[in-house]
């Protein structure tokens, strides 16, 4: 049942939007068409503009997508990629998506300062560089730049860009074991919007990652993920206890035990 609240167009807009969200969540499948503008107009007794506003909002959120001249359809769900030491392809496959990559550029380049510092090399040290458009089920998901020191794996790209650079590193005994990634929200540049085929929202998540194998920095990468197609999943755990010098942790004459890592504290 439709419960159109009659408290001004703002509420009507919200009612249409809530109705469509419910429909997408409970009744429709990915790729199904949503009810036409005309039927929504009649159903809610609102103007076509109000209906369009509600649909636009859901397109911007990435819940619906427009196909030129064909109508408005339920968009595929966002991919919730976990922040862990995996590659795009591995994460996509684990979600039942088929990963793909368009190689936009590949070269050996002198390391810029940021890259050199991240990989613990001198500025201008030769680096394998790859720029890829990553896709999932054919939909553009992210633009990814990757740098690997040539001295680590001179022949890394000699047979073309491997499907997985982590895989190619592992094949050379350079197993990625840990890393650090920084995520920043940003507006896509015009070129990014075009390459990523972004129609609604212009929001992207930019990441920069240092990948290590034990003590050795192996790879530096930067990516821009579509904000409307991608969510980040971060497992959380209890924070470790803070360490304070015992001189301050204990009263001058007291004999409290030192440090502050209590027995059985979470690792």
């Amino acid at each position, binding site marked *: 049942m439709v419960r159109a609240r009659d408290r001004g167009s703002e509420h009507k807009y919200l009612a249409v939007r809530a109705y469509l969200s419910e429909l997408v969540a409970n009744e429709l499948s990915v790729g199904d068409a949503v009810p036409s503008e005309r039927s929504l107009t009649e159903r809610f007794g609102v103007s076509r503009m109000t209906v369009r506003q509600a649909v636009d909002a859901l397109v911007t959120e990435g819940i619906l997508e427009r196909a030129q001249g064909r109508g408005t359809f339920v968009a595929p769900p966002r991919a919730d990629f976990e922040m862990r030491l995996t590659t795009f392809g591995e994460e996509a496959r684990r979600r039942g998506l088929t990963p793909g990559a368009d190689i936009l550029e590949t070269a050996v380049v002198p390391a810029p300062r940021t890259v050199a510092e991240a990989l613990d090399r001198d500025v201008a040290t030769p680096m394998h560089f790859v720029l890829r458009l990553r896709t999932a089920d054919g939909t553009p998901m992210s633009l990814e730049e990757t740098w690997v020191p040539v001295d680590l794996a001179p022949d890394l790209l000699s047979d073309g860009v491997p499907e997985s650079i982590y895989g190619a590193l592992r094949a050379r005994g350079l197993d990625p074991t*840990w890393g650090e990634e920084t995520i920043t929200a940003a507006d896509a540049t015009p070129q990014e919007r075009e390459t990523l085929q972004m129609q609604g929202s212009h929001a992207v998540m930019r990441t920069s990652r240092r990948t290590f194998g034990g*003590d050795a920095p192996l790879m530096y990468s930067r990516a821009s993920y579509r904000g409307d197609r991608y969510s980040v999943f971060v497992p959380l755990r209890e924070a*470790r206890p803070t*360490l304070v*010098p015992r001189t301050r942790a204990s009263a001058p004459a007291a004999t409290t035990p030192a*440090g502050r890592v209590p027995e059985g504290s979470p690792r």
Partner: protein
Amino acid sequence: MTPSDADIAASILAGLGGVENIDEIDPCTTRLRSLVKDPALVDPALLRRAGAFGVMINGRVVQVVVGPRVDTIASDLAELM
């Protein structure tokens, strides 16, 4: 060749200006976030030689990237502090 975690902890403490210079150290998943009394006493080069993969200094906050060994290093630091 690889220094022990206890040696690394001792060198990191020295690089941070010694235990007297520490207000607190917060062990994160791959980093030690320290609040120091006087940032001028921090020696980034010494921290790097101690095995840190990166050192970020912002005011009195010094972040030392140590990687997944942070757990054992934190335990060793607790002993030394």
